[in-house]
């Protein structure tokens, strides 16, 4: 929980870096970068979290639609209230709401990635 006195963490701008990365400039001066794959792998929706908690199915057979699917890409990133973003993916998945705190924790910049190791 943020203190009443301190300015809460907030993005100032979102932009794309090339075709495979999202950049967020935060109000504390930090610049985050993420690959879209990283964000999709950390989708916080109940379905995806449930999937993460399951052991991998060794007998899973790919569907033809999965084999022919285009590379993963977002089709929309929209603010949700004052607290997060919803990413709509090109495979139709759209149920994950990434809170600002979650987004910040997923930052893949060199400094943050070092802290996570």
């Amino acid at each position, binding site marked *: *929980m943020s*203190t*009443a006195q301190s300015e*809460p963490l*907030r*993005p*100032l*701008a*979102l*932009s*794309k870096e090339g075709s495979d990365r*999202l950049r967020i400039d935060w109000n504390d001066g930090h610049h985050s970068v993420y690959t879209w794959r990283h964000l999709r792998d950390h989708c916080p929706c109940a379905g995806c979290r449930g999937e993460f908690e399951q052991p991998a199915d060794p007998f899973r057979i790919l569907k033809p639609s999965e084999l022919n699917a285009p590379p993963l890409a*977002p*089709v*929309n*990133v*929209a*603010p*949700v*209230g*004052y*607290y997060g*973003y*919803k990413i709509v993916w090109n495979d139709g998945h759209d149920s994950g*709401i990434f*809170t*600002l705190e979650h987004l910040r924790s997923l930052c893949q910049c060199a400094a943050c990635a070092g802290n996570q190791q």
Partner: protein
Amino acid sequence: MHPHAASGAKIDMPGVKNVIAVASGKGGVGKSTVAANLALALKMASHPVGLMDADIYGPSVPIMMGVPPLDPKTTPFPIEKYGLKLMSMGFIVNPSQAVIWRGPMVHKAVTQFLTDIAWGQLDYLVIDLPPGTGDAQLTLTQTAPLSGAIIVTTPQEVSLIDARKGLEMFRQVRVPILGIVENMSFFVGDDGKRYDIFRHGGGKKLAADAGVPFLGDIPIDPRVAECGDLGEPIVHKYPDSAVGKAYRALAATVQEELQKAGQQPELPGLQF
């Protein structure tokens, strides 16, 4: 369905200057009474005000404002009573009929109340939320341009526990908390003595612990229930009663807190 209902995008309400959510963690603390009287007190301070009943399962605004069920095919909404613009599920559904809906339908109804009702120019739109931290609350925090939230509690610990949860929900979704109101705070008998029927001071302590403003306490008066049941809120019928004065003071404090909170900045989007 309105596009906002599907996308979760923020609803634009350019004619409405301030949207105030009145919430509680627990049912039965008098949240609808506070919402109705606060709306009227703001109106009595010469502001155009609307009152939206977001309690889809248990709407209270029709009884409290003395409005019978209406024919939605022939009635233009919102309706007006005591100078307030009003919308409630209770205007559409017969009081004896239960609304048995899952979350997505509640989401749709609440969104439509915001988008499809011609609220016009309002200084304040007061939203009476259902108790708890469920679908209606999520829809409003995700889509409505909320200026702030007021948490209503009664003084005793069993109510405060749930009030803390409501408060934490608004914190997590970053809706400014305007403060806490302690309802049913005390009773002054004919002997002039004060009785703290449900204990006293819990709301003030909760506000201090949470670092949010304490907006005031509303005394108990049997006429509050009588006025609610007869469809004329106490601040309108008895504006100079102790409760009426408490609501008018609450309206003034809420206006001050809204000014202090300022406009919440929208999150930036991403261009595609």
